[in-house]
């Protein structure tokens, strides 16, 4: 049984779902951020796998993966800044308490 694209994709799916679960269960805002990172990685892995298994995507896949990595970095920077700000304001990073948008 050779390793095919599907293996990679399933692995990425597992990563994605793990990220989602992390996102949903963590009450800590940083935990949520970690979940997002996981999901982004899943996406990046997907792109890389497609690039490897089809030559026409070889360069595109890499470029987009890099794009995703950069996006993740930017997102992390912004998100952490937001988290710190929120922490400064509310002295808490519990997202259960961050319910100002409640209707």
């Amino acid at each position: 049984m050779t390793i095919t694209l599907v293996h990679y994709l399933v692995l990425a799916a597992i990563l994605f779902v793990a990220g989602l679960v992390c996102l949903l269960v963590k009450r800590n805002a940083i935990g949520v951020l970690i979940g997002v990172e996981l999901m982004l990685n899943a996406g990046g892995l997907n792109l890389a796998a497609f690039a490897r298994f089809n030559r026409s995507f070889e360069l595109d896949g890499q470029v987009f993966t890099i794009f995703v990595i950069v996006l993740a970095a930017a997102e992390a920077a912004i998100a952490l800044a937001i988290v710190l700000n929120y922490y400064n304001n509310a002295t808490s990073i519990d997202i259960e308490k961050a319910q100002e948008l409640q209707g």
Partner: protein
Amino acid sequence: MSLPDFIFWCLALLTAGSAIATAVSTQIVRSAVWLMFTLAGVAGLYFLLGFEFLGATQLLIYVGGILILVIFAVMLTAQGSFSQMPASRGHWLVVIVIGGGLLAVITSTLLSTSWEGFSASPLTKQTDTSNSDGLALTFLGSSQGEAAHPLPAVPGQIKHIVHSLFVFEIISVHLLVVLIGAAYLARARRARREAA
């Protein structure tokens, strides 16, 4: 089982396991550590796929950058009550059901798709080992590499020449904006709070 396959399985196990651990661990510091392993595993997979440049980037940015940021954030906000905030049992149940459902949907979709045309093939010269010249040229918008090594046409795909200079520019500007935004958001505002 060939060596690459074996390595894949090892890396896949590491990545998936530590991802799940990241998700389930209640302590935020542990999550961060498990995340590091996950990132490292993904980097290994990039290497395994033959994309050394990607792998290196992954290691540098994620493990060396983002993770450090996360750990800093954890440290800045680490007060006893926040390090452990377990979710309720019912919450867990719902999340697991949803996660499982999503996984099932994705997996069944993957399995039911015929992946014709997607097979392992030797890498082109551009992305050859220890050589990121092709990638760099692509980023710079050069089509020399492609002219020298025409890519085979993929059925159902529109042939297009990759010019990523524009993408490169967008990334640069994006990063700049993000840096400024982050600096603005994170700056100290004590004076204002005192005033308030």
